[in-house]
């Protein structure tokens, strides 16, 4: 684990001072800083990061989800922020369980989160509370399940909107299929 870059230290100090109990973990990897947050205070922290003079993260570059099935809070939502004024990046991470996946929406802080959150809802089933229009965006409206979850089957299922059948990967080409080691 590398040390976080110097420019971002005032931001981290400010975050720790202003939200002592919201921050679960601060990590760094390959020069990138990740702040893991309690989902309850996400909107306050996001607003602070956008407006505070030492941070000014006015651009929400990306918002994506990842599924870690072995964890109890298996769904992770990552917010990649960019500060135009200070030329630095920061990743916020919020984790939720799969049974009650509710995360507050940051559409009030950055409007661009609208479609990003719809995409994460579409693919991972995370419910963003306060989102103006949380419906599927890329998959058909009546699709069942959330395809980017790790346990969503790849092939071997009926193509829902056509009634066609796609064989599972092991019957297509690779005997036994590819496995992650």
């Amino acid at each position, binding site marked *: 684990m590398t040390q976080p870059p110097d420019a971002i230290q005032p931001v981290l100090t400010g975050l720790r001072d202003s939200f002592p109990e919201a921050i679960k973990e601060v990590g760094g*990897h*390959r020069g*990138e800083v*990740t702040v893991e947050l309690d989902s309850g205070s996400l909107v306050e922290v996001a607003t602070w990061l956008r407006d505070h003079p030492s941070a000014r993260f*006015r*651009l*929400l*570059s*990306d918002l*994506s*989800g*990842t*599924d870690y099935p072995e964890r109890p809070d298996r769904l992770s939502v*990552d917010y*990649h922020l960019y500060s*135009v004024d200070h*030329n630095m*990046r920061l*990743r916020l991470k919020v984790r939720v369980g799969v049974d009650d996946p509710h995360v507050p929406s940051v559409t009030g802080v*950055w*409007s*661009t989160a*609208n*479609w*990003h959150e719809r*995409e994460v809802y579409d693919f991972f089933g995370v419910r963003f509370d306060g989102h103006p*229009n949380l*419906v*599927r*965006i*890329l*998959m*058909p*409206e009546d699709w069942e399940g959330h*395809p*980017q979850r*790790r346990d*969503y089957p*790849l092939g071997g299922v009926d193509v829902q909107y056509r009634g066609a059948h796609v064989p599972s*990967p092991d019957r297509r080409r690779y005997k036994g*299929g*590819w496995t*992650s*080691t």
Partner: protein
Amino acid sequence: MTDSIEPAGLAVRPGEARDLPPQPAARRIDYNERRAQQVLAMGGGDWAEVTARQHAAGDDELMVLNMGPQHPSTHGVLRLVLELRGEEVVSCQPVIGYLHTGIEKTTEVRTWVQGVTLVTRMDYLSPIFNEAAYCLAIEKLLDVRAPERAQALRVLLMELNRIGSHLVWLATTGLELGALSMMLYGFREREQILDILEDVTGLRMNHAWVRPGGVLQDMPEGTEAKIRAFVDEMARKADEYEDLLTNNPIWIERTRGIGVLDEEQCLDLGITGPMLRATGLALDVRKTEPYCGYEQYEFDVPTATSADVYARYQLRVAEIRESLRIVRQVLDKLPSGPVMHPDPKIGWPARLALGPDGLGNSSEHVRHIMGESMEALIHHFKMVTEGFKVPAGEVYLPVESPRGELGYHVVSDGGNLPYRVHVRDPSFVNLQAVPLMVEGGLVADVIAAVSSVDPVMGGADR
């Protein structure tokens, strides 16, 4: 006699059908009603919501128009649900997803190297950028750096690709706004770029040429002269485009003051690239977070201030010129050396060579692994079937694509397959701005505004 001859093999003879009792009138009405409903049954997206709102309001002047997904002016399968009062756009809701192919999911069951062939198919007008960003993200996870020559070649092809992408933008926008000659010119010059890309990578599109740790193969002999000739010609052609459009009264009428978005709105909506730079903010990932050695090249980040479609046009032509500057510099100081990382556990083991039957594995390499070294054969086999492992971790890597910030969020669990690849595609993000740009304007300006976003639906839907 001919009257009694009936066609053989008909299950129902024509005469019998006529004898059937007539259908009751009620059923016919049913059928007509059902058919009428089917014509209107354009579910999906926000159509139902918009039509319901319109019915509830009881406003006869309001018309709901479904523009796309099959519409020549929406740059692919983009669908816009427009509410119109006469010529005025009251509301606009973009609907996307028609080109969703699940590339992000598919990368999770293919090795790291195989992923290159998948991501290059997302944004089909700027494939080199997708490959480069994906490979740079893997290199960041591996903590390796591609050799200098490979970096320079990546920059070379990325900039040529940027020119090609901007040319398609100029061409299609010209076509949509009535400047048909621009369409012919733009595609004519792009064809030369595709020829160069084909010379270097072997393919016109979907190259899969940038690989983790370097590039697939070096530039063949004679290509440099070809690129230099093209660069000189292209600079003259850019002048021609500006002669044609910059002072053209129709072009100015159609683009000036259309689709204005200021800096604050752009940042709030996450918009980057030429649309953001048209507001005066010179934000360019090549300058702020240089990759592939962009810090070695001298170039400016053009900006404009009027923030409308016309400004975006001027910017893109200016960017073509800046790209030409970079291409010249790359060719002038192209370093020599290998094009793949020296670590044999990263680089692709096979060597390509031109044989009598086309491009394939070099016969020397085949002789080596088949006749000389068992270890080399095992290594080749392991690398090709299993691939390499990438240390666990996650990175976000942005590059400046022709449309804005193209970011790859790549997660590895330490295995030979990506754990998660998420793409922040600029088309996806920038399309969110369409309602803000077109609402309150005329329906004819929707075309100009959508076009100025330069959306590529393959990238937006992924």
